[in-house]
C-alpha cells in the first residue's frame, strides 16, 4: 500500500505543486508536458462524466483505477484540482485530499501573504508539512519489492 505522487493544479491549468514519494516509472516525457497531459486528462474526464451521468451529480468524478494504480481526485469550488496517485489497496483518499486542501493548502499557502495567489507553491513549510502528513497516513507503506 503506497502513495505514488500528488499534483495540484489551479483552475487555469498550471501545475502549482507536484511531489512524489514512490514513483517507479519515469514518465518518458518532459515534466511540463506531463503536467499538461495530466490536467487535460482530468479536465476531459470531468466533462465526460458530466455528460454521461444518468442523473444530476453532486461530487462528480471521484476516482479511477487501472490494473496498477488508482487516481483520487478532488476539486474545490474555487477550481483548485488535487490528484493523488496511490496503489490499488487504497479505497478512498478523499478525506486525505480534503485534509491536504483545508488544513495544509489553505492554512499555509492561501493565507500566506508572501505566496502570490496562482503561482507555483514555493513554501518550504507547506512541502514539509505535506510530506509529514502523507508519511503518517496508514496506507503509506515501504516500497513493495513484489510489484
Amino acid at each position: 500500500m503506497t502513495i505514488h505522487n500528488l499534483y495540484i493544479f489551479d483552475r487555469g491549468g498550471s501545475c502549482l505543486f507536484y511531489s512524489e514519494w514512490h514513483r517507479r516509472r519515469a514518465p518518458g516525457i518532459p515534466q511540463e508536458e506531463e503536467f499538461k497531459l495530466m490536467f487535460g486528462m482530468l479536465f476531459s474526464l470531468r466533462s465526460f462524466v458530466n455528460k454521461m451521468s444518468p442523473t444530476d451529480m453532486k461530487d462528480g468524478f471521484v476516482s479511477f483505477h487501472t490494473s496498477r494504480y488508482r487516481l483520487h481526485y478532488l476539486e474545490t469550488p474555487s477550481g483548485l484540482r488535487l490528484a493523488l496517485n496511490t496503489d490499488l489497496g487504497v479505497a478512498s483518499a478523499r478525506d486525505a485530499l480534503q485534509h491536504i486542501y483545508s488544513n495544509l493548502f489553505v492554512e499555509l499557502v492561501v493565507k500566506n501573504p508572501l505566496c502570490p495567489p496562482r503561482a507555483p507553491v514555493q513554501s518550504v513549510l507547506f512541502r514539509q508539512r505535506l510530506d509529514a502528513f502523507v508519511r503518517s497516513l496508514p496506507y503509506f507503506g515501504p516500497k513493495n519489492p513484489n510489484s
Partner: protein
Amino acid sequence: MAIFSVYVVNKAGGLIYQLDHYAPRADTEKTFSFPLDLVLRPHDERVVVAFGQRDGIRVGHAVLAINGAEVNGRFTADGKDVLEFLGNPANYPVSIRFGRHRLSSNEKLMLASMFHSLFAIGSQLSPEVGSSGIEMLETDTFKLHCFQTLTGIKFMVLADPRQTGIDALLRKIYEIYSDFALKNPFYSLEMPIRCELFDQNLKLALEVAEKAGPFGPGS
C-alpha cells in the same frame, strides 16, 4: 441496483454497439405564469436553464416538453421557436417539463471516442510499470467499468455504484460478442454490430446480472 448502459468500442475508438438498458428519469413538470422566473438560453440544439434553480429544476436541465407536447430541439411540436413562445405573455399559463437531456447518437459516438483516448492516457501517465488503461471510473452517481480484450475491443458498462459482479458481466459480454457477432458470417470486423442474437443474449445477461444484485453472480 441497475445497469444503465453498455458500449462496445472498436480498436480505432469508434463506437460499434450501444445499448441503454435503464435510464432513471428525473423530470420535473411545472406550471408557470408570466413572467418566467427562470433564465433560459439556447445551448447546442436545445434550450437549457441558465439561472433560477428551484424545486428540482437545476441549472443545465433542458426544456423537454411544453404543455405536454415534446419539444423538437429548440422548436416546439408546432414549429414555433421555444424562446419566442415563452416570451409571449399570451401563451401563459404554460406547463413546462424540465430534465436532463438524453444523449443523441452523435454525442454517444463522441463520448465513446473520448473515453478511448482517456483510457490510453491513463496508461501513459501511470506512475507504475506495466499499467493497463482505465478499468473503472468512479463518480457519485455511476461507475463505468471497462474491459479491453487482447484484440483492442473495449466493453464498457455504466452501472449503479453499488452494483457488483460487473467484472464477470464484462467477461460474459465478451463471450456473447465472440459467439454471436464474430461467428456470424455476415458480420465484418470493427463494424457496427447489427446481430439480433447478440442483442437478445446481451439483454438476458444484463437481466441476470441485475437480479443477482448485491451478492454478485456465483462465478
